[in-house]
């Protein structure tokens, strides 16, 4: 049972150093990572390859022993097996034993999560239905497609009604329709107060799904914050029809970027004041404005900026 804590995950200076057995060379997979994931939120962990995302998740689940620091799950030390009871986990590149049927696999993992036999009998068909596999429960999972395995993996993560889901690339191998279904499903669980921790390379998906993100880079937290703060209020896009060369140069000097297309020129301005000055200039020159709109940064832009600046 979760103990009283306002955070689902709380790490303090969490560090993992891998040491090569013979050469003694050290690799800091995660380095003093302090992160707080509030209860009930959907949190995305991002980072380039080798940033330490998987090591961080494995440390939370005690599959990897930290070198320094602490990790708490709902206020309980992550190394305590009981801390993992409220967690539903879907690993990346999972390898479910192929001797199971879909139902058998759910039965096994549910029993390890402490679900009683009577509950399992009731829950297994429900979970298969939930992930769209009700017709396939009796089939050996060796015959499942990658997308079906991903859905089944999600069902095993959900079967014991966890308070937190830790999902490593949850839509990997799933077709676009399936992805949308999974997103909707996760949205439903979020509305029920389940904390969702997503580790994904798919930035657009994280942007759609998550309310908070952290970007790991070279084992350290490079950026953390609420999605709306990170991606909102970044400037204005002014589209002008056929400006003169002189005017174009004048506007280019004030803009952060410029792009020409089909007789139109897009200028990006970083503040309201700058774009108003540009509009005044255009009106004075009787140049036509095609459109003016506030713009936001995509998560991808935030991600690239963060990683490149570090």
């Amino acid at each position, binding site marked *: 049972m979760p103990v009283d804590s306002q955070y689902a995950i709380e790490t303090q200076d969490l560090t993992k150093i*891998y040491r090569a057995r013979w050469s003694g060379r050290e690799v800091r997979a995660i380095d003093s990572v302090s992160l707080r994931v509030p209860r009930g939120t959907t949190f995305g962990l991002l980072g380039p390859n080798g940033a330490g995302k998987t090591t961080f998740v*494995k440390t939370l*689940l*005690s*599959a*990897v*022993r930290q070198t320094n620091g602490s990790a708490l799950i709902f206020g309980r030390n992550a190394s305590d*097996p*009981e*801390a*993992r*009871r409220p*967690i539903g*986990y879907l*690993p*990346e*590149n*999972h*390898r*479910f*034993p*192929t*001797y*199971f049927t879909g139902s*058998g696999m759910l039965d*096994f*993992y549910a*029993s*390890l*999560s*402490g679900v*009683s036999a009577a509950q399992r009998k009731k829950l297994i068909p429900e979970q298969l239905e939930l992930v769209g596999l009700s017709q396939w429960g009796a089939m050996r999972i060796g015959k499942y497609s990658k997308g079906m395995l991903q859905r089944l993996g999600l069902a*095993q993560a959900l079967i014991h009604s966890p308070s937190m889901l*830790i999902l490593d690339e949850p839509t990997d191998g799933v077709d676009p329709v399936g992805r949308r279904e999974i997103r909707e499903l996760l949205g439903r669980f979020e509305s029920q107060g389940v904390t969702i921790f997503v580790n994904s390379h798919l930035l657009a998906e994280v942007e759609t799904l998550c309310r908070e993100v952290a970007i790991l880079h070279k084992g350290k937290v490079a950026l953390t914050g609420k999605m709306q703060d990170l991606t909102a209020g970044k400037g204005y896009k002014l589209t002008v029809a056929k400006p003169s060369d002189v005017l174009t140069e004048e506007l280019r000097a004030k803009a952060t970027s410029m792009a020409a297309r089909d007789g139109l020129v897009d200028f990006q301005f970083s503040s309201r004041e700058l774009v108003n000055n540009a509009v005044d200039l255009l009106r004075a020159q009787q140049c036509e404005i095609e459109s003016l709109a506030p713009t936001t940064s995509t998560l991808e832009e935030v991600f690239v900026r963060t990683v490149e600046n570090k």
Partner: protein
Amino acid sequence: MLTLALIRDTFREALARKIFWVLFALSTLMILFFLFLLKIDIVAGATATVSLFGQQTRGNPDVDRMVRGVYGGIASFLYTFGMFLAVFASSGLVPSVLEPGRIELLLSKPLSRTHLLLGRFLGNVLVVSLNSIYLVLGVWTILGVKTGIWSPAFLIAIATTTFIFAVLLSVVVLIGVTLESAAAATMITVALMIISPILAQTNLMMRLLSSEWSRNVWRVLYYSLPKVYELGKITLDAIQSGTFAGYTPIWTSALFGLATLGAALWIFQRRDF
């Protein structure tokens, strides 16, 4: 419930491996052999004829001696070929659990690593001991019904084969968690089985070895390694002549098994996956 789930999973995986079915099929063949091909006619408490493959034996055979001989043969089969097959079949059951993508999910469940590994160990011992029970009880019942001789000494073979398999399995588990190699686990465990009858010649070697140092090395090896051969011999003696050679092979093998399993658990606790 957790332990039961782990045992059931080990059974499922074992049944999915053909080698366990080979073990089961061999046991079944032996049972069928005694059921259909060995025919014993008892007249007024004495053996009238014994026929094998339709050929009758001449004279008046000593059925009690014959039954004990069969028991001894079965026990020898279990200790040699059966044990080798069981080790070979079990060698992959630990490394398979440690496969990336599988172990992380198991470790994410609310169970300790000790519980996880011991559950696998126990499941594996049960799979093999059930096969021993099936073979020994099957042959014992068939021969008992056919000859009227119900020697409980033969049933000791179930306990001793299960015990020595558990000791050898601790080596398989240690190699499994250390090297994650089924082949290495099989090779090292079979090497221990092969070396066992050689180490058992301690009295002879104490006379043959010239230096005290080499005699001490031999003694250390003898007392520290599992005594597969001697346990088999103890079982055979108990079945065939009702004698008991002593407890030393039992407790030294048990200590070896406990120490090896303890080392496997210690390493497993500290590993990153």
